[in-house]
């Protein structure tokens, strides 16, 4: 029967269903296990979950597929959350970038281990031990070498070029994977009317820019947009029609005829209450010739006299 089901509070899981690259569990090089770490998300500036590969040599981002009404059967157990975690490789520069931009205000060349520091997320220093971190810093910084020490300073110009390359590579990947990027198609499960060749280069660029923007700050995203010479889009929200019909006035509608009682001040239209199944069946009962319940409680005197 259509009863109200109460959702039990989500109990914390001690297991997850994860899709991960083989490299995540490759512990041949170092004997340390890969670990989940909380780091500052460059796009939201809040905590997000990442994973550092064995011995902190590789950075992975963690994304969750989550939809209502899913659960897992795992072996002989049931897992309540139908979540599917994806652990995918990620360029550590994206996470290092915000720290460089922050330190740029001082305008000085600094050793990178002084730049990448965060009281809130102390694990961020581990980013520097990733194999790709130090060797690719030159994509986004100017470097100076004094003796054996390297000093870095954030370079907006270099960063823009680096991000542009990222966008261009993303475009290649999008084309290869047949990802629909057109504005007209919002659902990937839709059958596309347009063939892929109909998408303009601008469509791809804009889509790729949007995708990369999920990994950089809003300011940087705007800067990148102009660097790519893409015109800024008006917010899609403005084009969205209001979700509900607007009421013309709050006053009750005046009836042409005399329905005064419905217009009195204290009359409030109550929404029709949903009847339960039992009430519905009762309502259908043939009540001809039956006294209303209330008649049993009213004074009988008058009726008897007549």
């Amino acid at each position, binding site marked *: *029967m259509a009863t109200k089901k109460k959702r039990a509070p989500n109990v914390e899981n001690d297991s997850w269903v994860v899709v991960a690259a083989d490299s995540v569990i490759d512990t041949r090089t170092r004997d340390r296990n890969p670990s989940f770490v909380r780091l500052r998300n460059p796009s939201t500036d809040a905590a997000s979950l990442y994973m550092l590969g064995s011995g902190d040599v590789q950075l992975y*981002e963690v994304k969750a597929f989550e939809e209502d009404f899913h659960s897992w059967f795992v072996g002989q157990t049931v897992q309540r959350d139908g979540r599917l975690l994806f652990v995918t490789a990620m360029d550590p520069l994206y996470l290092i970038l915000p720290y460089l931009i922050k330190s740029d205000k001082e305008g000085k060349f600094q050793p990178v281990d002084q730049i990448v520091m965060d009281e809130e997320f102390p694990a961020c220093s581990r980013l520097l031990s990733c194999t790709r971190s130090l060797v690719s810093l030159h994509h986004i910084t100017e470097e100076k070498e004094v003796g054996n020490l390297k000093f870095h300073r954030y370079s907006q110009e270099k960063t823009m070029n680096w991000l542009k390359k990222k966008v261009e590579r993303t475009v290649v990947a999008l084309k290869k994977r047949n990802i629909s990027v057109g504005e007209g198609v919002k659902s990937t499960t839709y059958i596309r009317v347009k063939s892929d060749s109909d998408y303009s280069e601008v469509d791809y660029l804009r889509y790729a820019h*949007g995708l990369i923007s999920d990994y950089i700050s809003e300011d940087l995203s705007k800067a990148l947009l102009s660097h790519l010479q893409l015109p800024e889009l008006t917010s899609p929200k403005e084009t969205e029609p209001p979700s509900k019909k607007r009421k013309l006035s709050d006053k009750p509608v005046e009836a042409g005829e005399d329905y005064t009682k419905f217009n009195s001040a204290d009359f409030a239209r109550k929404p029709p209450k949903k009847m339960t199944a039992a009430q519905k069946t009762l309502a259908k009962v043939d009540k001809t010739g039956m006294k209303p319940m209330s008649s049993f409680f009213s004074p009988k005197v008058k009726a008897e006299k007549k």
Partner: protein
Amino acid sequence: MVWPQQKSQKPADEEEPACDVIGRPKYAGETNIEESGQSLPVVMDLSHFEKDNSVSCRLASPIPDVCKMEDCCLGIDEAGRGPVLGPMVYGICFCPVSKKEDLKDLQVADSKTLTETERENLFQKLDEARSYVGWALQILSPNTISTSMLQRTKYNLNALSHDTAIGLVQYALASGVQVKEIYVDTVGPAEKYEEKLSQRFPGIEVTVRPKADSLFPIVSAASICAKVARDHVVKGWNFAEVLGDVDKDYGSGYPNDPKTKTWLSKYLDPVFGYPQFVRFSWSTAQTLMDSKAVTVHWDDDEEDGEKAAQRQNNRSMLSYFSAAPGGNIPNQTHQSHRFFTERRLKSLDTL
């Protein structure tokens, strides 16, 4: 994972009647029956259904030659409509109109007024009259009933009953039986059902009556076939689930039978509910699962309008065609790119 397997077996039941027909050679025990005297003979071969009792299955007698030549009357009745346990069995019985009186002489009567032994004996008599009486059964497994009634587009028991009855009549016609009169015990309003059947089978006189099983011997005969099959199936139910030694003391299977209730409580699994023997769509089973089993939420669960709207953030339909749905992460103004929202992917901050 189990479904595709079952579905692939289903067409065999419906499209190849030849392999469903349980011919005479299969129950080879006639001499034995006469020798054994008192004890109940195995009169119906149900092995075809017992092989896979999760689907709908048709069993039929050979068609008497005389039924292909002469105008016939056909009775339809069902057994096991109310129980929460076991299958519902639909039966048809047919014989030439000229032999109606012979059928009366067999003293077939409404199956409900008979004891089990009497029913078995009467089925035996019907079987002996095979030169002019034919029958066919459709066994609707409890699983079929559950999945029909609980699927997304609900298929209620009345519709299921009507369609099964129609299917059996079609089978008789396709097998060459010269059906001219149909007698049915009603399911739902009699006039509507009669109209439906008349339209479906033009040229056949359809009579739908409540209590038809006590009015027309051919309906009584059908009811006996159906009831005997149901009794046998329920008694010898093969549980597909691994339950060890199953307590078979489940009583009549009707919801108000205390034995049935006890059995239902005993075999309630908190995750899976019941074995396929139980009709999940019965309120008896649902109430027990609601109170004692783990709550399961489905996509098409009825929710209060307000709640559903809240859950969906009350967005206008039009919004689905323009802006990418945001609001995946409530406390943030940040919107993920539609690449992620379209794929229901989001970042996590904790596990």
